[in-house]
């Protein structure tokens, strides 16, 4: 499948590249939908996040590590991962400030402002799901990049996990 060097930065053939160019946006859109509708349909933050991470992984596979590395690196993924985790905790803390840890502060129990099966029907669960989706997507991407960029035969000095 690869006419050039398999480990080089050139990536796969033109067929794969063109297909990737077309479908990536749709895969990401699909992942986002799964994340946003997590409270009314099967799916949610984790499933959607995995799909989003898969879209990124597809780009890395098709275009090669070097080109993709210009847009997203392990460090960026790690920073977004931590930011999303913090955001998830922040949703919980906002509830705490309103009275109870992880209280659904957008939707008091007696409220009838929302209709079932709509996007805005679960209050702060939507926010939590979005944070989890980003956390899982970026976390998995970070793992994928860390494992694919890892160069055997120690080239760096004393590192970390």
């Amino acid at each position, binding site marked *: 499948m690869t006419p050039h060097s398999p480990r080089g930065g050139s990536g796969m053939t033109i067929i794969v590249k063109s297909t990737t160019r077309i479908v990536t946006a749709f895969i990401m859109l699909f992942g986002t939908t799964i994340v946003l509708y997590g409270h009314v349909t099967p799916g949610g933050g984790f499933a959607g996040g995995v799909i989003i991470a898969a879209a990124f992984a597809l780009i890395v596979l098709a275009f090669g590590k070097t080109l993709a590395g210009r847009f997203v690196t392990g460090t960026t993924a790690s920073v977004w991962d931590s930011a999303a985790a913090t955001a998830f905790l922040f949703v919980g803390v906002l509830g705490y400030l309103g009275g109870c840890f992880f209280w659904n502060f957008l939707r008091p129990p007696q409220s009838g402002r929302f209709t*079932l099966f709509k996007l805005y029907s679960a209050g702060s669960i939507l926010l939590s799901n979005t944070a989890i989706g980003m956390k899982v997507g970026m976390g998995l991407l970070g*793992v994928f990049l860390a*494992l694919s960029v*890892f160069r055997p035969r*120690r080239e760096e000095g004393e590192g970390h*996990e």
Partner: protein
Amino acid sequence: MSSGAIPFALSMVVLLIGLYAIIAKANVVKIIIGILITDYAVNLFLVLLGYRHGGRAPIVTKADLDTSGGVSMGFVNTSVDPVPQALILTSIVIGLAVAAMMVALALRLHDKYGTFDITRIRRLKG
């Protein structure tokens, strides 16, 4: 053994296969695969616990609401138990984290020792 117990017994067989791989294999990658098989066996066991024969997926649609806006008893009585499914979803996520950790460690180990053979990865003893 009643026919209802067979799936449980089979999931335990899968668990034992995983444990066998962990104990008997000397290759780091095969041990990791053993852990993953064990993990899936436990998940399978848990999801079987919530299964109801002929039950349907625990997804509420508009047809499953009763007049007061709550979920109808008919749905509750025919759907499978969703709690174990929620549990294994969490357990899958944890398994993913452990798997990533194991693979990263295996890469590092190969980097340092130049082998995946655990009989040769033996600096610690005593």
